[in-house]
Every structure is written in C-alpha cells, then in structure tokens.
C-alpha cells in the first residue's frame, strides 16, 4: 500500500462526534411486537379509531411479508421480538413551551448544534426535534401558522388535522409497499407533518432533527408533506445517534404530495452512527421515501448527503403523474470502514412531457461497499418525457467497492433516457499534481472530494451547505495524517 493510500485510510478513522448518550428516564413498552403492543401504542397516543385500524391492517400485512434480500449488502437481521417499539422520555408534557422540555434533552440538542431556543436558531429555519419515539418540540409554529402553514409532529396532526392525515397517509406509500414500510405503518411513533396551503411560499426552511438515544429502541418515524396548488416548501432532515455496540433499526416512511405547480424540495443530511472499524454497532437505515407529483407542472426534488449508518437501504423516488412535472434526485453517499450503502432512486414517468434528473455521487473508502441502484421507467402515456442520469463513483484505497445497478425502461418512442456512469480512484497523480503546486496532502484530498460532489451539494439549502461541507471534511479527514 502506498503512502497516499495509507494516509487516506487513516484519515477515515476520524472519531464520530455525536456518539454521546443522554441520561433520561424512559417510559418504555415491553419489548416485541404484537397486536396488543400496537393497540397500547395507539391508545397511549390517544389516537382515533381509524388510525388504529390503519396500524392493525399494516401489521397484518407485515406478518405475511418476508424481509427482502435483493440488495447488495449483508447484515444480521434485526430481532423484531427484541426491539422496543415505543420509547419516550418520561412525563412528556404537552409541549407548547420550551420550558417544559427536559433540560437534559435540551442540552443534547445544544451539543448537537441544534439549539431549540428560537432566538438561537439559524435564522429562517423552523425545527421539529424528535428524540427516540416522540417529537420533543417544534419551533416557530405560531409564525408559520400566520402564513397558514401547518408544521407539527405527526401525532399532533392526527389529532388536530385528522382529515388531512387520513386523506394522504399511505396514499403515496401503501402499507404493503414493502416489508419495512409495512412495519413502519404498524408501529410508527412520531414524525413531522407539513401542510402548505394554496399559493403559499413557506416563509421558512422547515427541518426535523432525529436523534436515537435509547439503545434498545427502534425508530419508526413517519413524515408527510403536502404542498397544495402553487405552494412551495423546502424541508431538511438531520440524523445522529450515540455509539452502541448493538445495531439499531431506523425504519422511516416519508411521503410527499405536490399538487399543480407546487414545488417540494426535501434535503437529508444523514449522519447516524456507522459502527466501528470492525463493523460492530451502527444504525440500520431502512427507509422508504417517495413523492408524487400529482399536479401538472409540479416538482419534487430530493437531495441527500448520506454519510452515516452501518447499512443504508434507501431509494427516494418520484412518481411523475402530472403533465410537465419534474423529479430530481441529487445524492452523495459516503461509506467508510465497514459501512454498506445500497441507495438510489426511482423515477416513474406517467404524465406527458415529464422530466427527471438523477445525479448520484458515491464515495467509498476503507472496507466499505457503496452501490447505486436506480430505476427509470417511462410509461406509454408519458410521451415526450426525458430522463438524464449521471452516476459517478470514487474509490479511496484498494479494499472498498462501488457498484451501479441501473434499471431503465421506456414504453414510448418519443421519450429519451440518458445514463452516464463513471468510476474513478482518488488517484495518486491527482494528489501529486496538487501537492506539487504547494497544497498539503490533506487539503489536496479534500479539494478532490469537494470537487467531485460539488454538483450535488450546491442543491442543498444555503443554510446547510456549509454544514454539509464540514461533515464531509470530518468524515473523510483523518484519512490523512
């Protein structure tokens, strides 16, 4: 192994900064999953009857399904009987005031760089803070309400806005969609809900910050975003978890609905704990995310920076139903150590003159395995539609893997699909070239990587682009000296 490669490998050993645990008293359920557990969960959350029915139907569907195995990753399957399906800090009050939040939890968010006090927050960003199974606090609710925007936890929405939730939940991702979506539909405990009324531009960035703290709990969050005709919203989620030797399951479902001329931009900065060098511990990140461009001229854009988790299986997708609708997927997936990521997207073109763009950048280092899996499907009636896909992989060192699995089908002759894929190695020649110009090895590698992912990171909301850059540097720093 050359000096450069060794340096790169060691750079990857950087400590995970968010691995601390918060000491809180939990109100836990017994472990395991059963109809009784689901009933108990639903009643604890004071849910209406239709919600319980939805859960039970989903649970029965899940029981009949099998855990999927088609992806390019291997792991020990979660023991569903040994999981906690509900884990909430004790005596969680009705949180209308930040004063009611457990000071330990408040401190946790401070430490994570997400202060919950509105005056301390990034200007123009509203946050919903989710701690294990429940939403702790949602900021700027009143300000958003003035614009008619609803931003609250999904539990609250089920009670306060039942018509909206009932109409849309499971409409984009039915419970039977897949194994983990079914499980989520049965046991989801919280998540965020956003509703942007007609012709409204959401006045702030909305964001949810997910934190898994309890070692034994799975996190099953459910997010639903609806943009009515002519509405637009930008939403961002961030994720971290403590370092435990055991794997933890995060199985989320996110559904987006965009009506005529609506525009939803959904960004993710995922930095779950990824396990240690030997592949011990880390989060299983098995999420289903899908949006539907229901209306004409609507647009849904997914941007993701995936750096954490032991195993990631995730394919944020867009169903382009409305004519002239647009779907976008911009992704940077970084894997180091023994991480495994199988991620990509699906673009399903149904309406006329629909457009989709896929830009995926995978960076693999250490002994990790990084796969892009993407499907582009253009239906019979989707005449004049276009897709453009670029999948670039970058390898650091000799012991990692990068794979591309594109699935393309077009059922009409007037549409076009373009797919480009490249694989490159962070070459010694590139590093030497920059070093010859006086730049240090570490800066050279950072420049090469930043150059590689630039097309994607520029899609992130400005407030988070800096954070994303820092995260990338931290993640791949340590690779040098």
């Amino acid at each position, binding site marked *: 192994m050359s000096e*450069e490669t060794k340096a790169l490998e060691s750079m990857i050993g950087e400590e995970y900064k968010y691995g601390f645990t918060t000491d809180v008293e939990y109100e836990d359920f017994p472990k395991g999953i059963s109809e009784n557990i689901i009933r108990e969960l639903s009643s604890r959350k004071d849910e209406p009857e239709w919600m319980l029915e939805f859960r039970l139907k989903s649970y029965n569907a899940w029981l009949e399904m099998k855990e999927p195995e088609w992806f390019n990753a291997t792991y020990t399957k979660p023991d569903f009987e040994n999981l906690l399906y509900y884990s909430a800090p004790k005596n969680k009050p009705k949180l209308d005031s930040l004063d009611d939040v457990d000071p330990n939890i408040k401190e946790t968010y401070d430490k994570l760089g997400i202060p919950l006090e509105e005056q301390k927050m990034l200007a123009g960003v509203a946050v919903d803070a989710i701690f294990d199974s429940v939403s702790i606090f949602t900021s700027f609710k009143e300000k958003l309400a003035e614009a008619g925007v609803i931003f609250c936890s999904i539990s609250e929405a089920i009670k306060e806005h039942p018509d909206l939730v009932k109409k849309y939940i499971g409409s984009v991702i039915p419970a039977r969609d897949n194994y983990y979506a079914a499980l989520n539909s049965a046991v989801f405990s919280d998540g965020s809900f956003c509703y942007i009324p007609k012709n409204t531009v959401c006045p702030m960035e909305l964001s949810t910050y997910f934190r898994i703290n309890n070692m034994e709990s799975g996190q099953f969050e459910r997010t639903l975003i609806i943009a009515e005709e002519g509405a637009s919203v930008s939403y961002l989620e961030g994720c971290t978890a403590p370092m435990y030797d055991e794997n933890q399951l995060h199985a989320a479902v996110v559904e987006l609905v965009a009506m005529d001329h609506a525009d939803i931009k959904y960004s993710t900065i995922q930095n779950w704990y990824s396990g240690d060098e030997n592949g011990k511990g880390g989060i299983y990140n098995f999420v289903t995310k899908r949006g539907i461009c229901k209306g004409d001229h609507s647009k849904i854009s997914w941007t993701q920076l995936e750096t954490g988790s032991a195993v990631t299986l995730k394919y944020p997708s867009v169903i382009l139903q409305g004519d002239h609708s647009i779907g976008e997927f911009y992704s940077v997936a970084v894997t180091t150590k023994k991480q495994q990521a199988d991620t990509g997207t699906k673009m399903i073109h149904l309406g006329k003159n629909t457009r989709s763009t896929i830009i995926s950048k995978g960076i693999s280092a250490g002994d990790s395995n990084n796969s892009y899996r993407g499907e582009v499907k253009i239906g019979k009636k989707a005449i004049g539609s276009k897709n453009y896909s670029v999948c670039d992989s970058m390898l650091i060192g000799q012991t990692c893997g990068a794979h591309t699995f594109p699935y393309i089908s077009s059922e009409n002759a007037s549409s076009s699909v373009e797919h480009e894929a490249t694989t490159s190695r962070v070459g010694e020649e*590139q590093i030497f*070239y920059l070093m010859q*110009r*006086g730049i240090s090895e570490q800066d050279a590698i950072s*420049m090469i990587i*930043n150059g590689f992912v630039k*097309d994607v990171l520029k899609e992130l909301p400005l407030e988070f682009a800096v954070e994303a850059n820092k995260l990338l540097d931290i993640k791949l720093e340590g690779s040098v000296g």
Partner: protein
Amino acid sequence: MLEIRNLHAVVEGEELKILKGVNLTVNKGEIHAIMGPNGSGKSTLSKVVSGHPEYEVTEGTILFDGKDITEMDADERAHLGLFLAFQYPVEVPGITNKTLLREAYNTIARANEREELDPLEFEDYLVSKLDIIDMKDEFLNRSINTGFSGGEKKKNEIFQMAVLNPRLSFLDETDSGLDIDALKVVSGGVNKISSPENAIVMITHYQRLLNYIKPDFVHVMMNGKIVKSGDISLAEELEANGYDHMQKELA
C-alpha cells in the same frame, strides 16, 4: 541552486533502476535543456526531483540551496520554489483553476511568511498574468484541465508557473503535442517568466523547442545517466546525427 549528486532511483517496490547516477548542477539565471531518447529517464528525473511518491531514491542526494530535499514531501519542495510543468497535466473536476491557484499561492506565501492575498487582490494579480500566455479569463473559472485540449493543458501549466513564480522550474516535454502557433505562445511565455533570479530545466525530445527558448546548457541523457553536456551545438549535433550515433560514439 540545484545540485543533484549521483542520484539513483527505482519505482517504489521494484528492483529495476531508472536513474543510475545522475549528476547535475543548475545555478540561478540559467536555462538547461535535457535531451534523450524515450525511456532514458528524463521524465523520471523531473518527477524524482519534485518528490513524486511513486519513486524511491536508493542512492545519492538532491540539494536545493544547499539543503537536502531528497526525502521531502512534494508540497514542501513546492514551498521552496520548485515547480514542475507536467507532461500530462492531471484533470481535477469540480475545482476551478482559480481556486487551485489561490490555494497554492497562499499556501506557498504562508510557508515563506509572506503576506497572503485576499480573493479580490488575488483576482487582480491573476488577471495581470493572463497576457503572459495569451490566456482568456474564462479559463480561470474552468475546472482544472477538465475537458481542455492538449494544447490548452500545456498552456495552463505555463500559466500556473507564471502565477506561482517559482525559483526553479522543470518543464517536462512541454513542447510535445503543440502545433507551431501554440509552441510560439508557450515558449514566449516561458521567456517572459525567465529572469536572472530563476532557473529553468527543459526536458525535450526535439531540438525544435530550443529554437524558441535558448538554453545555456544542453545535456544528453541515456540509460539513466547524463552522458554528455555542452552548449546549444550539442543539440544541433543530435538533430543532425541522432541518438544512436551518439551512443555508438560514446561506446
């Protein structure tokens, strides 16, 4: 300025010697040309001197201003004022020429305790160098060498040399792949950069380049060694009789 003593080098981890005892002294204000057939070790010499990690020095020393730089990292050598114009300039997508040059310029300035330039000052400085190589300013905002033609890449090397203002530059086959007009522009640029304060070592196959950049010394390299040194007439002799003839003569 540069003193190479009995330099031997191999490709890291391999046995085969590529440099087999090179001796070369370059003083400031001088222009040297190293000529030689394919595989004689000319390009390797420039890489070894600039610190390419692929090569390992097995014997001998490289002194720069009397300081032993044989084991130094490439970036530290660059801080001392060593520059290599690459035979095959490397593409780095997503990073603009301007970003690279500002980073490089300021890193070198910091290492030498000189004042760094802020982005606006640097922009002015950069633009002032464009004329040297007849470069359009749109080049500055393009990704490093990405999608450049062969000629543009070579021009870009000399432009970087103009901006970083090194004390000693190795030009590794800067003339190869250039048409006659581009060759004039590139060599014109090198002549403008050349001064009594710096030194240049050109590596080339052909005498053609030497019509445009006049060397003070010409060296012939064969089989990993400098076998003959002289003035420009040595290059003319080579052009007339070829390397084979010289090899026989030396034997």
